[in-house]
């Protein structure tokens, strides 16, 4: 690799890590204020404007707390577990494109840390590493509640990874690519015909995953809720019966790392949802016009116009991702929790057959060239 490539990858990776680190406290704030909004409460409003600095205060608190290791734990795995769950959470985002490419001199720069040709497989393989952190934490804590929590979590994740992986196969079939960059690129086109029916010109439905794979989208959505351990599938934590589940014995920054991992997983899941089913960085309807206006009114040409486009694409991607993150919060404060066996029933008896049916239908439609 040339020097430029090294700098490019380094810059993108650093940018992404910094952004993701900022997303966590903001998400914590959104969750607290959002839940307060739904429950006729005020929420944290003392630290900074609208309580925005509350997360900062929390970080300071976590850092300054005593960090004990209980006597009955297995110290090595106990200390390793938070790292094992937080690192994959950062890594998954590497293949998600947050804007299209730009031409700098002779180089084409993709706004994506790595455009792997096995993109989706990479996502699933790294995302499933996170469960090791939870199993380790549960086992190493040497406590019955944490053990139950980690057992629940491992079976839950394995069951739902299956339907999650299968639901995405429909997307792979329709876009004929595993590269997330390609998938996002192709969603910029429009659906011109549904089977034999040719759609009129004015009915411009973008070729987004949700319109091509509605069933697959639903299965994927439910599965990511289970994958990220969010309510209604937060059984590994199972607040009421398992106290705090797998992270019961953790305190201070070690606990904060688990919490970070949860919010990072949420961010990644939202990014994936946006990329696979909502056109990724493709501009939202209406943003093309605004972009045109901005470019013409400011008289932007050449590189400046290109950068404006990249900025708009990044904004579009962020809006889509933010919507799904809000959706996670919204669902959490509305629904009750499933019971463990009901969750398993749903996973194996409903989600799995449905995702298989989705593959079957997509295969037939693709074979006849209808999608």
């Amino acid at each position, binding site marked *: 690799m040339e020097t430029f490539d090294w700098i490019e990858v380094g810059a993108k990776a650093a940018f992404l890590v910094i952004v993701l680190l900022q997303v966590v406290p903001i998400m914590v704030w959104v969750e607290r204020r959002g839940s307060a909004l739904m429950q*006729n409460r005020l929420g944290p409003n003392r630290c900074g404007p609208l309580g925005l600095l509350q997360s900062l205060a929390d970080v300071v608190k976590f850092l300054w707390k005593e960090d004990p290791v209980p006597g009955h734990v297995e110290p090595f795995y106990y200390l390793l577990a938070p790292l094992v769950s937080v690192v994959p959470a950062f890594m998954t985002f590497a293949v998600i494109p947050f804007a299209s490419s730009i031409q700098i001199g002779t180089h084409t720069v993709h706004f994506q840390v790595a455009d792997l040709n096995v993109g989706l497989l990479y996502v699933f393989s790294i995302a499933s590493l996170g469960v090791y952190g939870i199993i380790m934490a549960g086992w190493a804590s040497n406590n019955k509640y944490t053990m139950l929590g980690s057992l629940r979590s491992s079976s839950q994740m394995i069951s739902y990874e299956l339907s999650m992986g299968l639901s995405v196969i429909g997307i792979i079939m329709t876009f004929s690519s595993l590269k997330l960059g390609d998938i996002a690129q192709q969603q910029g086109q429009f659906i011109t015909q549904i089977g034999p029916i040719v759609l009129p010109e004015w009915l411009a439905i973008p070729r987004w995953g949700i319109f091509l794979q509605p069933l697959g989208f639903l299965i994927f959505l439910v599965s990511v809720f289970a994958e990220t351990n969010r309510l*209604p599938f937060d059984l590994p934590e199972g607040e*009421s019966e398992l106290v705090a589940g797998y992270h019961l014995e953790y305190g201070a920054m070690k606990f904060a790392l688990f919490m970070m991992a949860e919010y990072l997983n949420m961010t990644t899941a939202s990014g994936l949802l946006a990329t696979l089913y909502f056109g990724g960085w493709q501009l939202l309807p209406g943003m093309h016009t605004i972009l045109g206006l901005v470019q013409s009114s400011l008289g932007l040409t050449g590189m400046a116009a290109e950068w404006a486009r990249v900025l708009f694409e990044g904004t579009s991607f962020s809006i889509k991702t933010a919507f799904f993150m809000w959706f996670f919060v919204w669902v959490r*404060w*509305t629904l*009750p*929790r499933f*019971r463990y066996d009901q969750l398993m029933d749903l996973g194996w008896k409903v989600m799995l057959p449905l995702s298989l049916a989705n593959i079957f239908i997509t295969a037939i439609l693709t074979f006849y060239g209808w999608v």
Partner: protein
Amino acid sequence: MTESKEARRSQIDLPSGYQVEHDPDDLWGDSRVIVNIGPTHPAMHGALRMVAKLNGETIEKSYCEFGFTHRAKEKLGENRTFHNFTVYTDRLNYCSALINNVTYAMSVEKLMGVEVPERCVWIRMICCELARVMDHLICVGINAVDLGAFSFFLYGFHQREEAYTLVEKLCGARLTTSFTRIGGLMGDAPDGFEKELKAWVEKTRKVIDEMDELLTNNKIWKKRTVGVGVFSKQDCMDYSFSGPNARAAGIDLDLRRDQPCMFYKNVEFDVPVAQNGDVFDRYMVRINEIRQSLNILSQCADKMKKGPIWSEDKRVRIPEKTVVHNTMEGLIHHFKFFMTGFEVPAGEAYTQFEAANGELGFYIVSKGATRAHRMRIRGPSVWHFQALSPMVEGEKIADMVAALGSINIIAGELDR
């Protein structure tokens, strides 16, 4: 946990020849995981303990323990004057302290043959129904929190705080009210109380409808509650269930209707009854009872008239402050009243009332002194808590949490 009870006992020095009996309820016989749920566990409302033998997530066998908050209330009743004991009744079922106050006052009045004036009875009825609404709101709310529905809980809790504000207007305290006196009340309801009460009733009606819409038909909620923690009609009779838990299993019994005291004959209300005796039915019965209590409250507010709140009986009536401060006789009366208390004629009486959780009873034996000779309190939670173990046998741990929340165990009246 392979260690058996015998092995553990053998570590203790036993007298020679002492044989450890085999206990059929021994959980420690085989190598299953034993989980100790409580007494400091977030799902245990109050200091309760359940030891459960698990097979996977299923509870194979369990036993429950209570008594962690035992404060010898009944013995205290024998060492305090009848007037003094009122404050102790607050700490029985602390979610509906007013009902305990009223029932205790009624039981002593029954023993003494004291009649209280009309306005006093209406205010006491308002207190009882307010307390019932507060108790039911917290029961269904906490039950929902245990199953993950937090917002539902806070909607109810907000309204409950408003109810506390009303109670505060009556007696100045929110939780430990001590509002009643033998033969009267601490004070009269403030001006405009009826209006505020009716406004609150209307608001609460809307909130209850909202809560009902949010949760009752929710599919996950139904999955978690229907057919869970079932306790049949026969079982309920065997375990002496009362109150909403018995009504959820089809026992059509409500002491307000069947043994009317105060003015319950003069107000119209229905007694909601369900058939299956599961967590969902207990939840539904409570939600519908809140609606009925709101009906009673608005009727009470309409029928309440101005008038005295104290009985004319000189034995129990606390002397007026103007009399106390200006006359020698009044001062002596006041001193004697609070230092030695009033004498209650010899006899015994059991007074029961439909408290929020079931039948609350005070059995008082007096030998003519200023203190009770024997005092016994029937707290409904004792009977309900005993049923928890059979109720959850063969169900999941998560169901245990749901079942415990639905029978509304209050440690205060359980342990006394």
